[in-house]
């Protein structure tokens, strides 16, 4: 049994709490720096769903939606401990993702609705004897067409449709508490278990980030979350409720308990505040329906997560803060901005690798480690192996019968950390692509270029009503380290330009054209253009 107290903390990190389940961890390096866990195979939509599952559980319990960091006897802040439940919601899930008969039956379009119900329900009973869906007939007043319409409508709200093959890993847009499902491994004949194949706490990380935002921001955010996600029930949620049947009664429904919770090392960061600000901005728009808001929140949360990865990597090794050149010009010859973007992407990826090295090295620089002898014997090798296991939860190849010297074990640790599958760099790339921020091409590399959906999210989150175009560019530089035009390029490079000025001018112009095509820009003259958020509340004085 590992004792979490001994785990080596990264720079500025909280101690790993005792309640953190670490028994199945084989190497603690990435987690120490960034947290447990930002997972490459957890799509950004699933992270949002996971986050909302946590919030929903707190709302159902009547607890405060976000948590505060507990304080120990000496007044120091400690890591939070959060437990939550996820209801199986099996009836709805079956209707959404497992049933294959509703649609063909409804297409028959006969007048004899009763016959179709009977046929369908008989089919369900035959294939899934544990399911009782007869309540649907009463719910929909014997109208199979309306029922099928409702099912079809909700199905169109599936997220990541191509992602998972198993029905127990398919999810809907989290439009309300009735539309949430656990991601689990269905064991035949049993309730199944949360196998953490796709939901690996990346959403819990977001939850902790929001919980650690400044008090003033949390005071604004919590009521908005309560209102927008729970009090104002969206019509989709109501339809889902209708389809749930008995599962709506939580007192009796089957559920999973989440064991343990995420670990987020740094107690306070500006990045957490930026994330909370964007959530507040998006949720404050009364005129945007929940479905669109969720898309913006997914993208922006993913963006802050990606920025966090790069910024944290730089901080751990005292490197310069990362900047992101957005290439808008594409495949024109001589596009040095794209080259800059390609370069910075490589730099960011490298930062993540070097950050882990720096973290490990920070332990090797201690007296505790240097006091360990370097002999290839059972005692000294064993001492080294024990320390590495205690500090990094990593088992080296040292055995009493075949001792390995300390330096060799150190190398093993570094190699294992660098070659870890699902390393943070992989999550960085995967998530940056999913939110529409990064473009990747074989043989070329990766560069930062925003999709229309991301641009829309940026406008909604950052523009309240109207803002001058130049101010918008300044704002996205300040908040996300995005460089688009000359001013910001100069600001980052201490007055000089890393590529010809006219390219940056063209880049700015193209950025504006993209916003124009999305209906967000109004240019009044050569000197004056406005970015407009059409969803901002009307002026009331």
């Amino acid at each position, binding site marked *: 049994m590992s004792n979490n107290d001994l785990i080596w903390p990264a720079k500025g990190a909280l101690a790993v709490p005792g309640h953190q389940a670490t028994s199945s961890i084989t190497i603690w390096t990435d987690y120490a720096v960034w947290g447990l866990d930002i997972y490459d195979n957890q799509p950004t939509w699933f992270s949002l769903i996971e986050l909302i599952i946590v919030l929903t559980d707190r709302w159902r319990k009547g607890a405060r939606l976000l948590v505060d960091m507990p304080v120990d006897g000496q007044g120091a802040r400690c890591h939070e401990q959060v437990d939550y439940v996820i209801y199986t919601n099996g009836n709805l899930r079956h209707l959404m993702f497992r049933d294959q008969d509703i649609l063909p039956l409804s297409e028959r379009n006969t007048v004899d609705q009763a016959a179709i119900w009977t046929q369908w329900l008989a089919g369900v009973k035959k294939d899934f004897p544990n399911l009782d869906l007869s309540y649907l007939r009463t719910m929909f007043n014997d109208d199979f067409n309306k029922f099928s319409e409702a099912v079809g409508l909700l199905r169109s709200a599936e997220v990541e449709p191509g992602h998972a093959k198993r029905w127990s890993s398919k999810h809907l847009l989290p439009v309300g508490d009735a539309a949430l499902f656990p991601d689990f491994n269905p064991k035949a004949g049993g309730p199944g278990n949360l196998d953490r194949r796709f939901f690996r706490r990346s959403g819990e990380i977001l939850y902790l980030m929001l919980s650690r935002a400044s008090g003033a921001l949390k005071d604004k955010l919590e009521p908005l979350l309560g209102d927008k996600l729970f009090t104002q029930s969206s019509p989709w949620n109501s339809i889902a409720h209708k389809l749930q049947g008995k599962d709506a009664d939580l007192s009796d429904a089957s559920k999973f308990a989440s064991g343990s919770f995420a670990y987020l090392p740094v107690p306070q960061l500006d990045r957490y505040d930026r994330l909370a600000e964007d959530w507040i901005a998006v949720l404050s728009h009364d005129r945007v329906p929940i479905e669109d808001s969720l898309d913006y929140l997914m993208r922006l949360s993913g963006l802050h997560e990606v920025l966090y990865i790069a910024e944290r990597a730089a901080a751990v090794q005292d490197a310069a803060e990362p900047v992101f050149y957005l290439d808008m010009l594409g495949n024109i010859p001589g596009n040095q901005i794209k080259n800059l973007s390609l370069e910075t992407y490589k730099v960011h990826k490298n930062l993540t690798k070097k950050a882990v090295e720096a973290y490990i090295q920070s332990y090797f620089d201690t007296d505790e480690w240097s006091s360990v002898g370097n002999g290839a014997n059972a005692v000294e090798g064993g001492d080294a192996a024990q320390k590495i296991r205690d500090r990094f939860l990593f088992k080296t190849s040292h055995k009493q019968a075949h001792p390995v010297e300390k330096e060799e074990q150190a190398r093993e640790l570094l190699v294992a950390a660098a070659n870890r599958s699902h390393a943070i760099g992989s999550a960085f790339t995967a998530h940056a692509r999913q939110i529409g921020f990064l473009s990747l091409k074989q043989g070329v590399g990766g560069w930062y270029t925003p999709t229309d959906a991301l641009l829309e999210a940026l406008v909604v989150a950052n523009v309240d009503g109207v803002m001058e175009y130049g101010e918008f560019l300044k704002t996205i530089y300040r908040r996300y380290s995005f460089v688009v035009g000359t001013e910001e390029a100069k600001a980052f490079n201490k007055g000089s330009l890393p590529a010809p000025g006219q390219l940056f001018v063209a880049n700015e112009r193209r950025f504006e054209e993209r916003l124009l095509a999305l209906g967000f820009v109004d240019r*009044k003259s050569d000197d004056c253009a406005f970015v407009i958020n059409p969803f901002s509340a009307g002026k009331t004085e």
Partner: protein
Amino acid sequence: MADNPLIPFLSSYAATAASDSLVDENVRIALKRHGVQPIEAKAPKLQALIDNFGSPSPVNVVLTGTAGDGKTYHIRKFYLDHLAGDEKAWINGGGIAIEVKLESGKTLKIVKDLSEVNQEVKAQILPSFAASLLGDDRDTVWLVAANDGQLLKFWRDANGNGSLDPTLRQQCARVYERIMATLKDDLSCDPQDVVKADIHNLSRSMTDELFGEVLDSVLEHPRWDAECPACPAADKCPIRINRQLLRGKSSPFRRRLVEVMEISKRNDKHLPIRYVLVLVANILLGDSRNLDRPLLTCRTARQRAASGEYRTTNPFNNALGLNFRERDIEKLPVFSIMQSFGIGLETNNRVDRFLIDRTNPALHEKLEAIDPIYGARLFESDRTSYLEGDPSADSRAFEEAMANQRRRLFFLLDTPPAGDSGPISPWDLTIFRFAGHYLDFIRSLGGGDKSVFDKTVRSLIKGINRTLTGMMTEESEKLWLARSIGRLEGGVGRITQSPQPAISGGSFARVFVDRHPGTGRPQMRVGMLIRGKRDDSDAAFDLRPLQFEYLMRVSEGSLPSSFSRQCQQELRHFALVSAAFLNEFSPDDNPTVTVLALSKTGQIQTQTLEI
């Protein structure tokens, strides 16, 4: 024989079109170099200045516009001619605020050009300027020239200046916010009357009358009659021929140019005075024979007259700046604007048959009577060789000749009466096929021709319904504010949750189309009409020519997704915000979701789900 000095003077416009101080400079150029009476530059807002500052309670005035649109010229004329200002004070007044006492006893402070004012002076004038604008100091008024970006920057920088008094900074923030709101909606004063100022944008002051006046100031210049009669080639001179085509209020060429200007204006591509001067100068003098010498001189004009060679002096091509190299067009934005209409490149069978087969001899004769030089005279040989099927003929040359004829047709055809699709519409020759209809629609707003208004609004509604639902519906009475869950279907919707506003009838939810006071564009809004009282949504769908064209074409059968992403997106925003507005008025006791489908006859069928 002596050349007409007016010609080289006009040439200088096109050559120095990029110059900023065109309007002021030209006075000196005219007199010094050419000995020509200057073309009286109009100061369209001068009277407004005189009236305002002569009144007992004047307001502040800001003149904005791009460099060269006459901001400084206006103020100079006003100061020197109407306030009897001191010439020396004017010359030394760059970068400071010139003070004058007005008749009403109030003090007027004048800033010739805000961009000339350095940081120190800006800090000095800031408190007084802010106080006047916010109405705290009613005894001082300001007259300032600044382009819109500069004006905003002035207040933005003040707000961001940490060394200023916090109350003052707050005032600056307020002024900044109000000016931005005013500029954003193209208004000439703050709708909330917090900032008390008239903002005149001189880049946007072009009107029909002013256009005609500018043209006449060139075309009716005394030098035409003073110099040209002495020249033997006078009656065959291409310059004079081109001039004749533009003269007179009823010239179809002139009328069409005015309509192009009106459409352009509504697309936010304005033609300030200096652009119009470049345009008319080029129409007269343009010569496409040698790209290095794009303009005629008296000498080359005589040569053309002698040889009867008019192919290269085509005024209809000159209107588009086709006598210039493409890269030079960048410096002459007026021609980018003219070319953006695609005149001569768009066509249809009816037009081409008319040009090639002479299907309408009466129309042909009429056009030849107006212009006997650039029509059949240039085109006949190409036409007959095409009809005879000459295999050795260069097809590209023929296409070019056709494009030239189409351009001529565009500029010389009569405007068809509103709603009449009988005669050929000149707009069929451009990318804005519905431009004529657009202008008719604008005229029908606010009490004009009701049948044009109704028919057009119905087409617009049909276009919007088709775009939002993605279905080829025939519905043109009610607006279906449709959407889908999330973005999975690309913004096209099968469901609606709000009432359907209609253009008339019994429901409270209505569709309104009004004229925007600043831009003159039609704007569509939804609102509630209860017992004669209107309650409008604040989100308007701004009908620029582009959006109008899009919706009319979709309503006629074009697929909504086949062009203009921007229009689709703007409609999506409009639908979302309008639906939110209407839902505020409907009680939520029986919330439903309505699923849309299309019947065989193109009607929208609904399936309601109770929730």
